């Protein structure tokens, strides 16, 4: 026997460590980056960080390979060949910036809206939106419009918060958790940490999803719902709860507008609005003295049912009475919806019973005294431990806004909003409804800036951005009658509408961090066609296209100027409360990213570049009175910019001494303090402020002091959405602001103040006999959209994708595992391979999102599996619906919010012929990187570090 080897255990991980924020996805986990001899040695989760508490996902763990990707852009590029041909010349930054500045200066002087600025997966929307505002263009949108805006809007207009990134389940106390249409989400690590915690505590997890993978795999119950029918399913749950009387009436009266009297005067301009007194206060009927009084009257015992005659003689009914009447109808009985939802009636009834059991027989009580906004002291916090989280399974359907409203209604009926055990607000939410000022776009300041930020929150038809004919002012038609609550814009329409030019031409389209010619195109073939389409005179239909990206994506070949960005370890970034912060139910938080490595290429952080351009254009608030730039860099802006007095991009360590939180003077040492603190700041709310935030006096006062909200008044939840009714009244012909005729009927239907369910729109316009299957995508946990494939480690996990089919459904079509199949929709056909599974709704097929790559993109081999056997479902989708009788093609989006309806797609599948098999189609040709590609044959990352020991 030879001797056991001796191993040196205590090798220091590296020689230095930096704490910053991950950006392998939008979750924004805290990381510790270990360097050895100036090279990345190891990236690990920061155990002190509030988001990930030390854990790191697959993507985060593969950061090294992104930073070393051969697909990184190296130098600014100017197109020299035809668009799409990928012929570029490398230019100096100065040249790139002067070309852009000259062009934008001219646009700004003539017609600023001809500059359209769309930003994707970045986390700098408070800067980019502000840039657009100062430039004076309303044509700005961030990625929310194709992402999850209908859920954000439904939440913000219902409960003053939202699922998405604005709320989270109470992982510590929930006893039943409904996970509706979620595969991964932005809260990637927090959700996994939370699920682990629920499991530890033995809580029941119910996955409502056509597909059982990932989170669904560990759910205690899997409800294989038919896509697009969640609204019906939830309303059937509501029906059962009403039947049982399992309703938290106390919660409804204290926290929602359930008892507000709704005017019942059909045909009049006030029908469906709240009855109000002279001061505008909504009214209720006190059951004790049968008096009509302001709904907020302390000590009143408001009626929830019945009907009253108002002093002016009109009839009115409490909002809840309307609700009860609607959903107790047999049309919402489980038996009536079961077949359509693909969920047995008995399952719906049992789940409703379980919700009622947990909410009402097993409440959670915390011994924490608190004071509500009416000055009542409560000795305990009692909550309904029913938690819900929902995401794109709801939002990517055209009925998502109303479905999400239905889910929030369910929460309110159960009293399960921000109570112990339920869904909770993440700071800075809750916000009042509507959550902010109306969108800017019509009014300008003298300096040329828009009077308000381009994205905002309409409170009624008066806030829409439409012309006198009711037609959209914005390029993408957000905030028009076609998408009245399009609060994040409609980025998915930007190329199509810029190409269409039916209202006004666009001169320059600037896109930052979105792969718009590929996976964020609703139809990539169309996007590529429109980007290369020319006018009769040979000029491009979309005259100028600027792209800011860090990598050689599928979109790069279509740009006129490419601005090469840094990677996430090479720049400052700001995860701001003004944007999409990292706050949790425990309190507000924000974070920064710091440069850990020096770029080895001629690249610049895009935010620095944007601030530079703003300076060159002498934009207000980016330059002083003399036109000199105010900010040297983004880092400088992060510290010194103030949106309102005392409020800047970063909320922590403000004030001269760095002690102020939320609001406070500029602190020159702020970044240093952040870095010392692990590149984040958080404020942990005291226990008494942790729940009932919408009516928790101490919390609301604190939030106001920190500048999170303007007023510390109670935030009433909108069980009944009066704002929607104002749009509906307009559709019925009332009021000064009128929609175009073609939209009246649709608006009247969808702007219902109480949740409704309707068929996903596309399904009503195609022949379902012809296209019987729903086609969906899911986020793979180990890939981020299109960027993962350049990552040498991540692509080994998923270099191809399959079309997953239900075993029986496939069997009936004669399709076996791994067979090549042809998938057809109203928009086209694609070829791919099938994989059969059991845990899948029989009427649905699905695939992983954004795995398919264009041949040659991301500097992968031309014959890489990503392009040979990978495919993009988007080839079957379209940004437009089929034409209606008048020939008009509406956007394939949620009619309330403009949310892209990715998952409304229906298809048919057949086995491919031998000739069709072998390579996925469509296969739109190979692209070539505009720089010399040096792909190593093998990687031995870490080998040197070993040798150095």
């Amino acid at each position, binding site marked *: *026997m*030879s001797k056991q080897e001796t191993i040196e255990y205590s090798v220091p991980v590296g020689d230095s460590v930096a704490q910053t924020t991950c950006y392998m996805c939008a979750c924004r986990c805290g990381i510790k980056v270990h360097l050895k001899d100036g090279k990345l040695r190891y990236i690990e989760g920061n155990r002190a960080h509030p988001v990930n508490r030390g854990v790191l996902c697959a993507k985060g763990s593969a950061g090294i390979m992104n930073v070393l990707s051969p697909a990184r852009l190296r130098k600014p590029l100017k197109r020299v060949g035809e668009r799409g041909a990928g012929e570029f010349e490398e230019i100096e930054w100065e040249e790139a910036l002067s070309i852009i500045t000259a062009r934008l200066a001219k646009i700004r002087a003539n017609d600023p809206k001809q500059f359209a600025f769309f930003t994707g997966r970045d986390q700098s929307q408070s800067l980019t939106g502000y840039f657009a505002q100062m430039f004076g263009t309303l044509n700005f949108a961030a990625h929310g419009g194709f992402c999850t805006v209908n859920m954000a809007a439904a939440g913000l207009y219902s409960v003053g918060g939202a699922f998405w990134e604005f709320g989270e389940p109470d992982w510590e106390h929930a006893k039943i958790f409904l996970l509706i249409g979620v595969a991964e989400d932005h809260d990637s690590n927090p959700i996994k940490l939370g699920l682990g915690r629920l499991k530890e505590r033995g809580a029941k997890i119910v996955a409502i999803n056509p597909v059982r*993978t990932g989170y669904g795999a560990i759910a205690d119950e899997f409800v294989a719902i038919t896509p697009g029918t969640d609204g019906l399913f939830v309303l059937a749950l509501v029906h059962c709860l009403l039947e049982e009387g399992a309703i938290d009436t106390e919660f409804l009266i204290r926290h929602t507008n359930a008892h507000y009297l709704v005017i019942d005067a059909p045909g009049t301009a006030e029908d469906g609005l709240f009855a109000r007194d002279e001061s505008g206060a909504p009214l209720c009927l006190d059951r004790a003295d049968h008096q009509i009084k302001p709904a907020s009257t302390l000590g009143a015992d408001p009626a929830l049912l019945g009907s009253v005659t108002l002093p002016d003689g009109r009839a009115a009914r409490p909002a809840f009475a309307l609700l009860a009447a609607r959903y107790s109808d047999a049309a919402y009985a489980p038996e009536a919806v079961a077949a359509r939802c693909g969920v047995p009636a008995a399952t719906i009834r049992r789940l409703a019973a379980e919700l009622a059991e947990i909410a009402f027989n097993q409440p959670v009580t915390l011994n924490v005294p608190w004071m509500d906004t009416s000055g009542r002291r409560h000795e305990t916090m009692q909550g309904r431990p029913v938690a819900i989280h929902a995401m794109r399974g709801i939002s990517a359907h055209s009925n998502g806004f109303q479905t999400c409203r239905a889910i929030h209604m369910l929460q309110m009926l159960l009293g399960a909003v921000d109570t112990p055990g339920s869904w909770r607000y993440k700071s800075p939410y809750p916000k009042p409804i509507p959550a902010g000022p109306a969108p800017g776009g019509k009014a300008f300041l003298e300096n040329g800036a828009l009077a308000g930020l381009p994205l905002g929150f309409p409170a009624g038809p008066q806030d829409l951005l439409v012309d006198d004919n009711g037609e959209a002012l914005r390029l993408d038609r957000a905030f028009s009658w076609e998408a009245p609550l399009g609060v994040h814009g409609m980025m998915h329409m930007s190329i199509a509408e810029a190409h269409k030019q039916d209202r006004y031409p666009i001169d320059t389209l600037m896109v930052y961090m979105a792969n718009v010619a590929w996976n964020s195109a609703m139809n990539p073939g169309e996007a590529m066609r429109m980007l290369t389409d020319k006018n009769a005179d040979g000029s491009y239909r979309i005259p100028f296209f600027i792209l800011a990206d860090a990598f050689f994506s599928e979109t790069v070949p279509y740009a006129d100027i490419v601005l090469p960005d840094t990677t996430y370890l090479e720049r400052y970034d700001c995860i701001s409360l003004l944007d999409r912060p990292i706050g949790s139910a425990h309190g507000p938080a924000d974070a920064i990213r710091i440069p850990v490595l020096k770029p080895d290429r001629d690249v610049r952080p895009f935010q620095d570049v944007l601030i530079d351009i703003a300076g060159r254009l002498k934009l207000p608030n980016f330059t002083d009175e003399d036109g000199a730039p105010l900010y040297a860099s983004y880092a400088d802006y992060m510290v010194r910019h103030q949106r309102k007095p005392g409020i800047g991009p970063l909320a922590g360590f403000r004030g001269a001494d760095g002690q102020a939180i939320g609001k406070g003077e500029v602190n020159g040492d702020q970044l240093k303090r952040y870095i010392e603190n692990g590149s984040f700041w958080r404020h942990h709310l005291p226990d008494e402020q942790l729940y009932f935030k919408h009516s928790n006096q101490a919390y609301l006062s604190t939030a106001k002091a920190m500048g999170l909200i303007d007023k510390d008044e109670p935030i009433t939840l909108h069980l009944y959405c009066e704002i929607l009714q104002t749009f509906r009244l307009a559709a019925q012909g009332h009021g000064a602001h009128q929609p175009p005729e073609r939209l009246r009927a649709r608006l009247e239907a969808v702007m219902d103040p109480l949740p409704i369910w309707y068929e996903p729109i596309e399904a009503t316009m195609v022949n379902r006999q012809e296209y019987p299957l729903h086609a969906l995508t899911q986020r793979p946990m180990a890939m981020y959209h299109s960027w993962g494939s350049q990552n040498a480690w991540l692509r*080994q*996990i*998923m*270099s*191809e994708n399959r079309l997953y089919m239900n075993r029986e459904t496939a069997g009936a079509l004669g399709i076996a595992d791994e067979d090549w199949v042809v998938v057809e929709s109203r928009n086209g056909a694609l070829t791919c391979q099938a*994989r059969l*599974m*059991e845990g899948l709704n029989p009427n649905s097929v699905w695939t992983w999102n954004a795995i398919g790559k264009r041949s040659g993109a991301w500097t992968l081999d031309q014959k890489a*599996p990503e392009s040979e*056997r990978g495919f993009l479902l988007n080839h079957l989708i379209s940004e437009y619906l089929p034409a209606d009788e008048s020939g008009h093609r509406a956007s394939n989006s949620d009619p309330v919010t403009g949310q892209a309806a990715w998952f409304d797609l229906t298809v048919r599948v057949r086995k491919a012929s031998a000739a069709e098999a072998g390579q996925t189609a469509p296969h739109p040709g190979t692209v070539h990187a505009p720089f010399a590609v040096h792909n190593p044959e093998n990687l031995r990352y870490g080998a040197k570090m070993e040798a150095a020991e």
Partner: protein
Amino acid sequence: MKPAASVLLLTTLTGFGYGLLAWLALFALLGLLPASRWFMPVGVVVALGFAASGLIASMLHLGRPERAWRAFSQWRSSWLSREGVASLASFPPALGFAALWWGMGPAPVTVIVGLVAGALGLVTVYCTAMIYASLKPIRQWNNKHTAPNYMLLALFSGAMLMALLLACWTGQAGLAGLLVLLAGLLAAAAKLAYWRFIDTQKPLATLASATGLTRYGEVRPLDAPHFTENYVLREMGYQIARKHAARLRRITIATAFLLPSLLALLAGLGLVPALLIILATLLTAMGLFIERWLFFAEATHVATLYYGR
């Protein structure tokens, strides 16, 4: 299991070589060798040549051949190590056998040294067999047939070489021809028994027991960790279609055993012995190579259960 050329060469060539060595010793003992001073040494050189080229081929298969010497250290537990030790140990007596024969002819000491060499050769073959026979994750190897199979095949292929040497030397295959016939039929029978055995064997484990999910019903793979092939799949995932295997089995029986046996019989009866034996040897070599290829190709490794193979 992937049939790697180096391993196929190792196992077949050492079989030929050590088989021959064993027969040389036995023939010496029985005094059946031509009374030539040279025949024996040439025979030993041929035997060692086969064995050595097999061993060298196997070195090619190592990731770090320069460290091959380390493989002699673990003879207490490792059959691979034992194989190395035994084969190395067989060389001095074998060379001694040749030298003594050259010097002293079939003296008792020569015969004793020869028997030692022959025995060590067979021990080497046995060790080789046990490398495979001891591997629990591979049911087609880990059974009572593997070692006898290897031994019989070595004796058969050695007899074939013996017959070849004799035929070339004396123009007569003689007794060796008969030996070939006998060993060939025996080996064929053993091989057939082996195939019968592996065809009726129950799998070692199921995906359910491999994943510990036995109580949840049949377990099917949904997604593998990676799309492209990896080491485990390349090394152990090789699989051959049943139809293909059946055909190759027939070819093996015919080329490795039946035809050569028949040819040896004819040669033994005096029909152009040298020519027929050369032909028979070539056929045997080819047949045994296919046999060995099948031995790998038909072997399945439990680890591939995880990949649904």
